[in-house]
């Protein structure tokens, strides 16, 4: 990150994004009986993805605040 720049990850409107490990990916795909491609997508050009340095093919876990559920987990596949 450039000096003097503020990380967008610290902004309150940006939900927490984390790259999840292989084990967790397996668990997730198993739970919903899906393939990676069936998950929602996120572009690798997305500012957050660039910031956390996720690669194409990674799955990111997004923890957001939800009006209905309080906290909600969502997963996205990083694509080109």
């Amino acid at each position: 990150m450039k000096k003097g720049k503020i990380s967008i990850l610290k902004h309150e409107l940006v939900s927490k994004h984390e790259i999840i490990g292989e084990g967790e990916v397996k668990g997730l795909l198993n739970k919903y009986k899906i393939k990676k491609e069936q998950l929602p997508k996120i572009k690798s050009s997305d500012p957050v993805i660039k910031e956390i340095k996720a690669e194409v093919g990674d799955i990111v876990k997004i923890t957001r605040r939800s009006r209905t559920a309080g906290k909600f987990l969502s997963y996205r596949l990083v694509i080109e």
Partner: protein
Amino acid sequence: MRTKRIKGIKFGLLSPKEIRKMSAAKIVTADTYGEDGFPMEMGLVNQRIGVIDPGLRCKTCGGRMGECPGHFGHIELAAPVIHVGYAKLIYRMLSATCRKCGRVLQGCLFSVTDAEIERELNKRVISEKLRNAFKTKAYPLSSNADVTKEKDDKWVITDDKEKFIIRIVDGKLNIYDAVKVRKRILEEIEEQKKKQANVGEVVKQVFKEAAKTDVCMYCGERQKVIKYDKPTAYVEIDEEEKKRRLMPTDVRERLERIPDEDIALFGMDPKSARPEWMVLMVLPVPPVTARPSITLESGQRSEDDLTHKLVDIIRINQRFMENRDAGAPQLIIEDLWELLQYHVSTYFDNEIPRLPPARHRSGRPLKTMTQRLKGKEGRFRGSLSGKRVNFSARTVISPNPDIDIDEVGVPEEIAKELTITVNVTERNLKPIKATVRRGRKHPGANYVRRPDGKKVKVTEINYEALADEVDIGWAVERHIRDGDIVLFNRQPSLHRMSIMAHYVRVMPGKTFRLNPAVCPPYNADYDGDEMNLHVLQTEEARAEAKILMAVPQNIISPRFGRPIIGGIHDYVTGLFLLTRGEKKFEREEVLGVLRNIDIDDLGEPAGTFKSPSGIDIEVPYWTGKQIFGMILPKGLNLQFRGKIDDVIIREGELVSGVIDEMAIGSFKGRIIDRIFRQYGEEEAKRFIKDVSRLAINYILQAGFSFGISDEDIPREGKEQIREEAVHEAEKKVDELIRAYEAEELEALPGRALEETLELLIMQELGRARDDAGDIAEKYLGIENAGVLMAKSGARGSILNLTQMAACVGQQSVRGERIKRGYQGRTLPHFKPDDRSANAHGFVRSSFKDGLSPTEYFFHAVGGREALVDTAVRTSQSGYFQRRLINALQDLEVKNDGTVRETRDTIVQLKYGEDSADPSKGDYGKVIDIDEVIREAVGAEVGT
């Protein structure tokens, strides 16, 4: 039947060869019918391309009208013509290919200026310098790379599978890649196709690259700029700015030169779409069945718009040929060519920008090909996505509180027209026979179908014979009758409650009748609204409707989790008056109010009182609250805050509180809500029905009216309004203006001084109206019918009453006082720069008193804004909803709680993020905690 899946759809262009092959007749004559009244040979209404006259046979397939699907014909165009739909693509292809050899233009990899390299090349040697140049561009050459000289300024390097062309352009050596680049593009296109993605992006790059290149790497031809002169002309401009029009023949020749292997670079398949086919030589003529003529009452034939257009094309085509054969001057030929182009263009699309639309003799623009497909009434949205249906009826609606909420009153006239097909079996033979025996009289039948499939109309003459004949295996189309389930709908169908299943009740009259309690979900009223009714035709459909779409299933709206069906207007007023309480009901009176309601136990009377009949005896009496309690389910416990006071229901009895909108009204209805959840939809339906009857019975007996005299306020009241509210406010406003002009006014934070003044004035005048309202309310009293309706939530608001009785108040445009009009003033009645209340739209009069001319004008100004706003909002929200529905219609909540598309890709991992069904929740909340606690702790514990 085996189901098949569509794997893909391929679009291509029709080649002239194909058009001729599929044509059943060559069309030459512009005339349609000959003098004998029969279709002309070789004419547009040719007997070989389809039949639309009954009795005639198709000369191609031998079929009669209805059997023959029609066949295409063709017109041989005297000169090629550009197809408007492809004009843009033609332009792009012309710009992207060499004007001489037709190959796709491609930019060079790099260029060098070096005499030595050239010398070496001429000696068929790849110099070290050149090798290095290749290397720096990441195209290293192997050791067995070979050079051949093709021309003085062209060399070819072949290296294994690679091939490079070197060419001298403007004294520079340009190096082109002849294999790799093409291969890469083709692979990318293939990849996109495999992914079922759009190849457009790749192809766009090809066009972009080609348009930038000005020398062909294959033949060395210097390219000229081509300008596209919309809609169908192309002009070539050379270096000296000289222009030359490219005629369709030239265009076609150029396109023909593009080799097949280059066409793939444009993402096209040369087998099914050669570019020169975009320039028409032969025009297919659609079968007459696609453009039927109609016979007017006068016996005159009126041809379809497409036929008219084709007539134009043939006429010009013929004139063109005659002139050309006669050796007419080039100018005339070109004019005719242009005209032919115009007619063919408008035949495809009559709404081309810059082209005047072809018109009918009456001046109406013709509806040609594109117009048939496009838009709301076009083939896709109008004929395929939406069609007109049978077994449906439409008429005006009117109220009937005596029918149940899930019933619909159907006029007998309509009931005799709508039918249900019943298959006759052993078990229903007898009643069906009886039905047919009634003939076309109401619960009768219109048609019977014999086992051989032949349909017989039931008539006055044959019905008895048919009734005898009907047997197992027959089918009877019987009239709808009481108890049949039908769908009832009012447009706009904005939510699922706009179409609900009702049970038929055949009645006299000409309108559909419905219980006013179901008006809110349909958003219906009786000022002339019409509704549609659809008769379900299969057992599955009826079952589905009954289980999913019946009115009781839809009492709770999934939008906000509260009943959307409930008492309106009189129902609310009636129960409000009944449960407010002073009146004591004698036994007979109680029975009168409970008329038509299934109650067999009045319970203990509240006490005894002296009979009002005058006879000196004590008689038992019941209170209104008790009577209301009788229609509540036994054992209901509920407590909530009503509009007036706390309503407490214990063990199915109304202990205290007045029933109002909050209790039984639509959108609110706490009691209905609770009954639905605790006792189920049937009980809720029963309750709403009983509410309708009880409320109507009581209000009928008690009497309730509202007239202009109910807005009367005594003189002293009026005085008070004028003095205390209006005058006072006007004085304060004047004082504010004075302070502003004297520059004593202090600006509010974040506002300019002038804004502050306006704001304060608005506040002051707003308060004036509220004060006037309060005074008016005081004088009108709680017993006033208007106040009663407003307080109970039946209809109207205190604000409405204020405006009628006391003061209409400030009119506004865009939230501000009215400022528009002349410079510095709104109307010539006021002095310039007058900031007073009167000059800017404050209406001090009430509607009852009447407005002064200036007030009337201001009111109209404010009213106009409201009108415009609603008009704009409805059209905008309508379009917005259409887009939303198109985007969301295929989403589905699966059993694991995920929301998925049809391809099974996940949209949301959990529906609504909490998997909650809003219709099971409470007003948007998943759960009403207070209610749960109250239930758990026991109903006895108070609020």
